[in-house]
């Protein structure tokens, strides 16, 4: 009983936090972005409440330059249709080379053939059949529709393809149009693709578990397909997403146990934009900014590629002179030193190291000495 009540309280509290706007549905990109910065309380709260972060950032005067360019979208679509052309002929070749898919395994199901609103049910039925009798099942499932529960809301996800391999395991195939050059790709882009694929792996595992199958039938290795060496020829690589899965799972449980985070908040706190009749936010900017400042954010430069609020948090971090600005690696090395001013003070000896800071102070002084020697 008390559990139920608590849950109701949380929902109410989250609704209050969001205010008068309807909750914003999550897509795979947004869920993947959650895993990018798991320690950020501000983000966990806003996502848990389904606040439209983009609208909030715009209203605060820190709009994030998100949304892909039409060229990138067209390029992505063209590449995807190239990989999937003629019953996924290119994809079959790559899966044969990469996973040793047998010649006989070519069965192709286009889930989209059933019409939009039946897609999830059809995906479920097809995956169930495939997991039940691996012998006669399909190999490739195109346009499947998976679901994932995010803080009480259902998010619908569309992986590029789910490939089914004879070994009785499902593999998620993720088609991306960033280039692989001499076997190297942009690490940030690969990481983002891996996070997104991890969302699909988790959704498919949840689906299998719901149907009473072993969730581990979904491989933690995803097939990433990218164009190779400036040509449009696709090439496939296996990417291990176990780490991303673990982070994602932790983040999702964290979102469901939001009450702990909520308990620390003042009762009157809300991120409501108070949209007027025309849908434009009417809340004073300073008031909203103040509300946001009352939650702690963990800004890192990676946020710039994933979070709508990035510019707002960066500005905040700058004003505080926080060492977060310099990236996670630097921040971790400056363990125990919270602000840039403090670090500088330690380096030129103006400030005495507090207890436990002796080691870092020594390193900083050394660095300062080296810098001075280089400059003179």
């Amino acid at each position, binding site marked *: 009983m008390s559990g139920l009540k608590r849950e109701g309280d949380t929902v109410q509290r989250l609704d209050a936090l969001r205010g008068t706007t309807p909750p914003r549905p999550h897509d795979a990109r947004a869920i993947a972005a959650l895993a990018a910065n798991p320690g950020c309380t501000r983000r966990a709260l806003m996502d848990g409440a389904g606040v439209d972060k983009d609208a909030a950032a715009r209203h605060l005067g820190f709009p994030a330059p998100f949304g892909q360019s039409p060229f990138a979208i067209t390029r992505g679509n063209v590449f995807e*249709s190239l990989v999937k052309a003629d*019953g996924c002929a290119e994809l079959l070749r790559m899966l044969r080379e990469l996973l040793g898919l047998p010649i006989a395994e070519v069965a192709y199901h286009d889930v989209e053939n059933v019409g939009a609103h039946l897609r999830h049910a059809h995906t479920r039925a097809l995956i169930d059949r495939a997991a039940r009798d691996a012998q006669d099942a399909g190999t490739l499932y195109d346009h499947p529709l998976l679901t994932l529960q995010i803080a009480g809301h259902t998010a619908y996800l569309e992986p590029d393809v789910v490939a089914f391999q004879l070994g009785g395991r499902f593999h998620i195939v993720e088609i991306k149009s960033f280039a692989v050059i001499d076997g190297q790709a942009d690490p940030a882009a690969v990481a983002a693709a891996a996070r997104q694929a991890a969302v699909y792996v988790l959704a498919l595992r949840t689906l299998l578990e719901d149907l009473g199958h072993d969730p581990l039938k979904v491989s933690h290795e995803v097939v990433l397909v990218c164009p190779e060496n400036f040509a449009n020829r696709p090439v496939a690589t296996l990417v291990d997403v176990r780490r991303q899965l673990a982070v994602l799972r932790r983040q999702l449980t964290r979102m469901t146990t939001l009450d702990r985070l909520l308990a620390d908040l003042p009762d009157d706190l809300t991120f409501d934009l108070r949209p007027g009749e025309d849908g434009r936010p009417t809340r004073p900017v300073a008031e909203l900014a103040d509300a946001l400042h009352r939650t702690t954010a963990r800004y890192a430069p990676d946020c710039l590629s994933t979070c709508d609020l990035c510019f707002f948090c960066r500005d905040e971090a700058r004003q505080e002179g926080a060492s977060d600005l310099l990236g996670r690696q630097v921040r971790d090395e400056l363990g125990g030193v919270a602000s840039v001013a403090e670090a500088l003070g330690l380096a030129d000896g103006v400030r005495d190291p507090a207890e436990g800071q002796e080691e870092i102070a020594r390193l900083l002084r050394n660095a300062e000495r080296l810098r001075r020697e280089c400059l003179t």
Partner: protein
Amino acid sequence: MSDRLDDLERRIDALRAGVRKAMRDRDGAAARVLRAELRSAERDWDALVSGEQPKAAPEPPPLVTVREQVHQGLRLLGATAQPRLIVAVSEAFLGGTIRSAQLTSLRRDEERSFRSSPYGRPYYLCAALTDRLSPGRGLLALSSWPLERRVVGPLSPRVDFLTCAIAVASQKSEDERAARLLGRMARNIPGASSGALGPPHPERVIEAARAELAVHAERDTRDRAELARRAAAQLDDAARLFGAATLSTIKKEYVT
């Protein structure tokens, strides 16, 4: 000769002034007409000064309709295919001029025509039918084919791809685009490309495609026969060609 050039130059000057004036008067229609004349005068001037005869229109309008070109492409391939492949085949072997975008509304037009006067045309460009007897997305077929060839089971996309590859490899053509198309298809058939650079050998492609086809043929033929039987039993004439409506389309029809 130079008299004519002088005449043309005067005419070009006059036309340029005319365009400027029309723009000032915000008379878009007149400006367009004058610009077209200006361009043709400039072309004449270019031709005259370099001693060439002015060319006719750069590309003669195609004598064969888009519909007929798609028909020819599909007949050549002999199996259900995606518009992209049809366009490539039509370009490589039939001197085709279709662009993919022109194919988008084609199937709907065909269906409309069939419904208003059934069997009024010798052939229709129709949909491939999926295992749910709905129209397969982005797959075209010919109404003159037997039902077995127009339905697609789970293995059919691959079987049709291999069939198309054999058809492409059997065509004789000196066109570079034909070699490229064959190369692209051969890459996705195990054992078809020799690994060396350069276009693959057609015989080798045919052999490799036949070898893989043999693996899938039996089960695919069985699936397709079963589907065709169901389609013949359950669907009316129009649905047999263009697919049974999916639930969402039914809903839409009821709403309007």
